[in-house]
Each structure stands twice: as structure tokens, then as C-alpha cells.
């Protein structure tokens, strides 16, 4: 797979090959600017490589148009971001409901409440993001990511905005849910300790992936 930056002259990846088996947990390590996030975006179909193909669950993602890729994301992907990306005008419960509401799930409210209870926030359903601590916000984001029962979970520096202790607890939660749901996990991070908790650790350097 090749990916060329928006300016066109910098090739981020050069002949990159990566296949991930169902249920696997993979960490991708790399210095900042090495293209970790770009790779994650390509895996999610948020962006397209200039050459090469991306397959998700046996289907060629790169052959689909943006709307079809959005549908696949809704059906098969979960996301956890470094900056949480909760919607500030929605309560915790409403944030978790949102992906289900977009696909028309009927009992979104109850399922969101259950998902929040699962991450230990059953008492904070009606709190707004700004009323929650960073760790709590990331737990809401994790509940939102798992509530649609995705096959693939993509995490972008999930503890990057949290202090060490909180980060550790959030990571515990992420791995626990991942194991319980049997989800495939791809995590981008520069935290070696966190990466070490994954089944496979890769390093992205000079546009190539190497086992770390």
C-alpha cells in the first residue's frame, strides 16, 4: 500500500503490507509524524491510499465510495480517540446512543445505559462531558465504541490525554471489553507499556512496518 500526503511529494508508506486476523490485538508504535494516525485512517476507510488496497472482513474497502465506507464503519468499526471526541451538547447516555440512533436501533436508550453501566458510569448517564473527568469521558467514548458490537476496534492514543494512573485504568477497561466482546483491536500509540499489552506489536518507521 502506498500513501502520498496531501501536498503530493511525501510518500508516507512504501509497499506496506499488513494483515490482521480476527480477534487479534495489534499495537502500532511510532514516533510522532511517522504516519500512525494516517494508517489508522486508512484502515477505517476515512481516507484512501494513492495505491494499494484495504480489505475489511473480506471486503475491499478501497473499492467502495465514501458513503458505502461510512456504512461499513457504522456496521463493523468502533473508534476510541485520544481527544475523546464526545459531543459537548449531549449527555453521556446520549453520546453513547448516537451511533445506534444513526442506524435506527430501537432500544438505543436502554442499550446505552447498559453500556455505560458496563464501564462503571451507570450513575452518570445524565452528565455532560464537561461535568466528567478525562478518565470518565474516555470511558464514555469506550462505551460508545463498543455499544454497536463492532468487529474491529480502532484506538488512537487512547490514554494520550490521561495521567498515568487513569490511563492505566482506562486501558484495563479497553482490554477487558475487547476480550469479552472478542473484538479485533488495532491501537496506535507511542506508549511502549501500553503496546506491550497487545498480542502483536509493530513499529512504523520510514514508511515500513516492522515487528518490534
Amino acid at each position, binding site marked *: 500500500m502506498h500513501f502520498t500526503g496531501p501536498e503530493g511529494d511525501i510518500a508516507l508508506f512504501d509497499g506496506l503490507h499488513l494483515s490482521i486476523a480476527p480477534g487479534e490485538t495489534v499495537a502500532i508504535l511510532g514516533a510522532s509524524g511517522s504516519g500512525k*494516525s*494516517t494508517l*489508522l*485512517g486508512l484502515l*477505517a476507510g*476515512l*481516507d484512501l491510499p494513492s495505491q494499494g488496497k484495504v480489505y475489511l472482513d473480506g471486503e475491499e474497502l478501497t473499492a467502495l465510495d*465514501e*458513503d458505502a465506507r*461510512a*456504512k461499513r*464503519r*457504522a*456496521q463493523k*468499526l468502533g*473508534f476510541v*480517540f485520544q481527544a475523546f*471526541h464526545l*459531543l*459537548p*451538547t*449531549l449527555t453521556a447516555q*446520549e453520546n453513547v446512543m*448516537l*451511533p445506534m*440512533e*444513526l*442506524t*435506527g436501533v430501537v432500544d438505543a436508550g436502554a442499550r446505552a445505559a447498559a453500556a455505560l453501566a458496563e464501564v462503571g458510569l451507570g450513575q452518570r448517564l445524565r452528565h455532560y462531558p*464537561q461535568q466528567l473527568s478525562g478518565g470518565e469521558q474516555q470511558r464514555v467514548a469506550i462505551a*460508545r465504541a463498543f455499544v*454497536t458490537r463492532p468487529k474491529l476496534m480502532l484506538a*488512537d492514543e487512547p490514554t494520550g490525554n490521561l495521567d498515568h494512573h487513569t490511563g492505566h485504568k482506562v486501558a484495563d477497561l479497553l482490554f477487558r471489553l475487547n476480550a469479552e466482546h472478542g473484538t479485533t483491536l488495532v491501537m496506535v500509540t507511542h506508549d511502549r507499556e501500553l503496546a506491550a499489552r497487545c498480542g502483536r506489536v509493530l513499529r512504523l518507521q520510514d514508511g515500513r512496518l516492522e515487528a518490534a
Partner: protein
Amino acid sequence: MRRSLLALRLLRRDWRAGELRLLAAAVVVAVAAVSAVSWLAERVGGASGGRAAELLGADRAVSSSEPAPAEWLARASELGLEYVRTAEFPSVVLAGDATQLVSVKAVEEGYPLRGRLQLSDAPGAPSQAVRAVPPRGEVWVEPRLLAPLDVAVGDNLDLGESEFRIARLVTVEPDRGGFFGSLAPRVMLNYDDLPATGLIQPASRVRYQLLLSGPEPALERFHAWLRQADMRGVQWRTPEDSSLGIREVMQRAKRFLGLSALLTVVIAGVAMLLTVRRYAARQVDRVAVMRCIGATAGEVTSLFAWKLFWLGLFAGLAGLALGFALHWLMLELVAELLPPDTPAPGWRPALAGWLTAFAALLGFALPTVLRLKQVPPLRVLRRDLGHDVFRGGSLYVAALAMIFLLMWWQAEDLRLAAMVGAAVLGTLALLALLAWGLVRGLRRLRARGGRQLLWLSGLTRRPGTAAVQIMGVGVGLMALFLLTVVRQDLLEAWRGSVPADAPNYFLINVQPEQVAEVRAHLRERGGVEPALYPMIRGRLTAINDKPVRPDDYRSDRAQRLVAREFNLSYGTVLPSDNRIVAGSWWGERPGSADSLSVEKGLADELGIGLGDRLTFQVAGEAVTGAVSNLRQVEWDSFNVNFFVMAPPGLLDGYPSTYITSFHLPAERQAALTELVRRFPSITVFDIGNILTTVRGIIDQGVRVVELMAGLTLLAGVIVLLAALQITGEERRFESALLRALGASRASIRGLARAEFLLIGALSGALAGGCAAVAGFVLARRLFELSYPLNAWLFPLGAVAGAVVVWLAGGAGSRRYYRGSPMRLLRGGGDA
């Protein structure tokens, strides 16, 4: 369906977070303005439109300046038509020493043929609907006649040579003509009592009507028969005609109010542009997240379109409630001018209001919101993407197009819409430009001034938003100033232009044989020596022997002038305020008896020049003369003036009455009461009274427009708040930073206050200045009054603007200056 409900839920969440309040407020104000005007117009218009036959009091009417001849009555009976006769004319009633100009109407048994009169026994008492006429010896009067005469029901009053008892009060007279139609109060009497009053003299100004009702074919046959006879001076009136005048006035009033409502819509539109831009900008991250978790671009588009739909629906509903309340208020303000039985409010104005809401959102908000679908989902990982989705001018093109479409819809006339649209946008652009210039100037000043000009910094840091704020508030204030101060100024200027000794009374219907006595009476008892002019009614039938018809002319005024009779006079002395502009006045020795002198304006309107031969129909005969001079006349001098005058000899033999005007000091008023007693058939017009009534009517109308201007100002304040909101994050950050650097909360608030006072003062001064200039131009160009530029409007505007903006801005920005600086500096972002 699912998506619309989801959009509704998301809208509710946005609303809860306070995201859309200003946008909704802008919609509310816009809808209120349009629906209030629409309801007002519908109900006032409906008060006349729905009951056309009642407005005529009959199915058809024949109107003439002579009583209906016997053969008409015979023909009507023959055709099986019901008929009654009425006569209407101005006169003066007396009660003790008090006199009052009234509009007399004599009616025959059977009146009205359509509709009902409403009568009551005392002012304020309940009315009963009746079809009846006053018994002989009694009159029914309008309640407003009682106070000036200091009489009550049961008292007597003198009308001409007869005395009548006031038996009942007329509260509703269906065929009165309603809107602006009636300056003098009504006195209604039995047709058979009319001769004994002695009020009807040869050539008296009386409008006779033969009211007819019956089957349509019979009415048509009567009309056909009548047309074979001489129809000159006779008017065949249908119910449609009778409501025509009112409909025209209403149409114009509706158009004017509609366009002023649109001014509010345009300002509210500016507020919408501002608020929706901020709203959309805050949605960029959220849309990226939604796209990332699986929403397609189409879903995003439809979600936001639905959100706006729901917003339009609910805010529109609130706007309709406000508009409905406002229209009640306006209706109350003009209640005296209206027939008391206005129809119930209908649903059409609600529809118009809602359409406005959706149209405004479509033009001002939707294009911006739709850009959100261009937000790339990758923004969740790369913050640098998606910043430029709102770039480009097409957003404003949509807004401008919508402004124009709305104008077109309200004006119902493409040219008018284009003109008003250009004027509104021109004014807005001018205000924005001036505001921009001022802010730039201050900025330069601030750059040079250093520490002591720190208070200017709030304004100069944000020149763009400051200019928009100044424009928004400025337009609202300007409308208010024009309606209050400038209008008052113009009235004063007009009053000042009328000399103190300008005539304050008119006498009409003076019979030729009374002239000497009236002149003597006025000289001895009133101390005045007025000129009395003979007045002969004639209709222009030919110019240079070529027949003229109304259809020959394009302008309304020319058509009216040709269609109706007007007053001719003769004499040797040029009236004192007339000036010959072409040819020469004949003086004591006219060259030939068949010369004519024509008023310049009339000559221009009808295309008449020196030497043209004009033929008039006077009392059934053709009278022809050649134009020997043109006169410039000062119509607002309150002196008696004529369109056409002749030297003695040409018109002397025709039936005439005399007319005069004079200034009678208040202490000599008794002379008039005596005059009316001595010569009951003479009608006295008290100009002071009439002007007071007219001013009252104008004032009532203006108050309605003032309410509209209030809404415009409200829209301006929303623009202010919207602009404030846009700079909110910046203010919050600045305030936190300044406090972290050691500034006290009070000093930061002081800076903000200075900024608001400055914005308010600038917009107010600008509005005052523009209003003053507009008033100046109006006075010179339109009203031809000498009116100095009102310099007071600058300081007045500055103070008013400063107060309004300080109050609104202070309330709107308080939250930006609260909270701990630490939290503010850390929080940043979306809070």
C-alpha cells in the same frame, strides 16, 4: 421519518445546550413582523371586502348631483326593483352656542336595502341591528357628535331651519365607507324632513343616491335603460366599486407595512447568517465524529435540513403567537378608523408567517449548514482538515436572492421590489461602510494613542464584527428616529410654513343673493373682509374640440380629473397667492370674454397649453374658452383656489354658489354661530378641527408603523447579540488571559462596557445622522418644506444607542467574564 425524529431529538439537545436560541429568536421576530402585518391587513381588508353589498347598502346604486327624476323611480317599480332614495351633504348643526360640522344623510323608509344599521341608546350601551330610518322630527347621530356639542340623547339640535330631537345613536352604518372615509360625524334624518330644513339650495353640493335591490336581470335591464338616457354626472355603482377605494388604501397600506416588515426580516436574516455560521462552525467536529461512526454525507445533510425544518416550525409557531398579539395591539391602535365588526382572524397570515420562517431559513441558514456535509471524517484524526468548508461567496448569493424574492412577494410588483430591495441593501451597505470607516479611524487613533486609549481596544480589535453590530442596531434605530423625531420635525416645519393668519375657516354653499349680507356680517361681526368667489361645477369634455375621456390618460390623477366635475370660477382680480407663469392675466379689461386661466399643474397633467380651446359641460350646456394664461397656485395656503378661472361674462349665467376662506381669531368665533343661525344653508368648515382629525388618523397609523420599527430594532439587537456570541470564545479567553496577567475583574468588565457604549453611541449617532439627512431630503424634495438638518439627532441617537447596546450587550456578555481564569484558560474548546 426516522431521520426526522432523530433530527428533532438532536435539535432538542442543541436547544437545551443554548446553541440555537438566537437563531430561533431571529426567526421569531421575522415571523412576528410578517404575520402581524398580514393579519392586520386581512382583518382590516376583510372588514370591507366580505360584505360588498352591505357597503353599498344595496345591490346597485345610482349616484348623481341631482335628485333621481320621477321616471327613474317609475322604471324601477316597473322592473320590480325595490328602491330607496338618500341624500348626503356636509352641513353645520347648532346646539346652544356650539356648532359642529357634520355629514348629513337623509334616508327614505326601507333603507338600508342590504345590511343593517346598529343603534344604541347611550354611548357605550349595547347596540341592536335594525333596518329602519329615523322617524320624522328625530335624528340619529354618531356618538362622537355628543361631546363637542355638549348634548345627550334626548336633547335637541338645530339643522338648517328645523329643530330635531336626538333619538338614538348610530354605532355602525354599513355603507359609510369606513377607512379614512369620514371626517365629520354623521347626522341621519328622515328624507321627508329634508325640504323643511331649507339646506338644499340651487347648486348646493349634495350627493343623491338611488339605492336599488332585486333580481340580477332586472338590475341589468335598469342599467341598460339608464345608459340610453343621459348618463353625464350620473354614476352607476356596484358593490365592487364601493369597496374599491377602501381596497386601494388597504392595498397600499398593506404593501407599505409588508415592506417595512421585510426590513425586519432582512435584519433578522443578517442575525441568522451570523448565528448559523457560529452554530455550523461548532458542528464541524461533531459532524466529523458522526461521519466517523458511520453517518454518510447524505445523512448529515438530511439531519441538518430536518433540524432547520423543526426549528422553523417551532420558532415559527412562537413567532406567530407574537405576531398575533401584535396585530391585536395594532388593531386596537387603529380601532377608531375601522368598522367595529372586523372579521375573525384567518389562517392565511399564519401560513404567510410560516412560509417566511422557512424562506428565511432556506436563504440565510440552510446554505451554511449544508456545507457541513463537506466536513471530512478524517478530521477526527487530523485537526487541520475541514476548516475551509464555509469559505466562498455563494452563501451570500443565496441570502441576497432570498431577500429579493421576499421583497417581490410582499410588494407584488417586480419593479417596486427591485427598488425597495436596492434601497434596503443600499442603506445597509451605507451603514456598514460608515461603521467600517469609523472603526478603522478609531483603530488608527488607538494605534497612536497608547495606554490612555485602551478603552477603544475592544472595538478596534474586532473591526468586522463591530461594523456588523453597528449596522444592525443602526438600522433599527434609524427606522425609529424617522418615525418619531423626524416625523414630528416635518409636522412642525409644515405647521411653521403656514402663516399664523392663514385662513382657518371655509364657507361654502353661499347663495348668490346672500353674498352681500354674508360679506357685511363678516365685516361687522368678525372684523374680516374676505373675497367671495363664485363656484360653478363643470366637467372637461373636449380639448381643441377633440373629446377627452379618462382612458386617454395614463396617470391616475389625470383620469380622475377628467372623470369628475371640478370647480370653475370667474373674476377680474388674480387671487393674491396666484402667480402667472405663462400668458397674462386679463385684469379689469379682458380682451375677450371667452378667455380661460388654467392652473399649471392641471395643465401639465392634461397636456394643456396656451391657446388651447377647452370645452366644459356646465349645467347641461357646453361652454368653450381659450387658454390665455397659466397660474401657479399655492394649494397649501388654505386660500380658496380654482383649477380654471374665466373673466366675467363667460360663466355668469350658470347656477353657482359662493365660497370663501378667512382667518377668524378665536375671540370672534361667536360671529360664525350667528352666521349659521342667519344663513342655515351655508356650510362652515373649521380647518383647525379637520387638521386635528387628520393628524389623529395619521398618528394612529404611525403608531402601528412604530410597532414595526420596534421589531426592526429588536432584530438589530439580535444581530448585536449574535455578533457578541461569535466573539464570545475570544472574549472568554481574553478575559482569562488578562486576569491571569493581573487585571481585576472590574477593569475587564469596564473595558467591555466601554466597548458596548462605544458601539451603541456610534450606531446611534450614525442612525441619527442618516435619519436627519433622510428627513432633510424628504422635506426638500418631497414636501418642499424648508427644514434644517436636525443636529440634535446625533447626540440623541448616540445616547439612545449607547443605552440600548449597553443594556443588551451587558446582559449578553456577562457569562464571558465569569469563572476562574485557570479553568477558562484550560477549558477552552467547546464549552
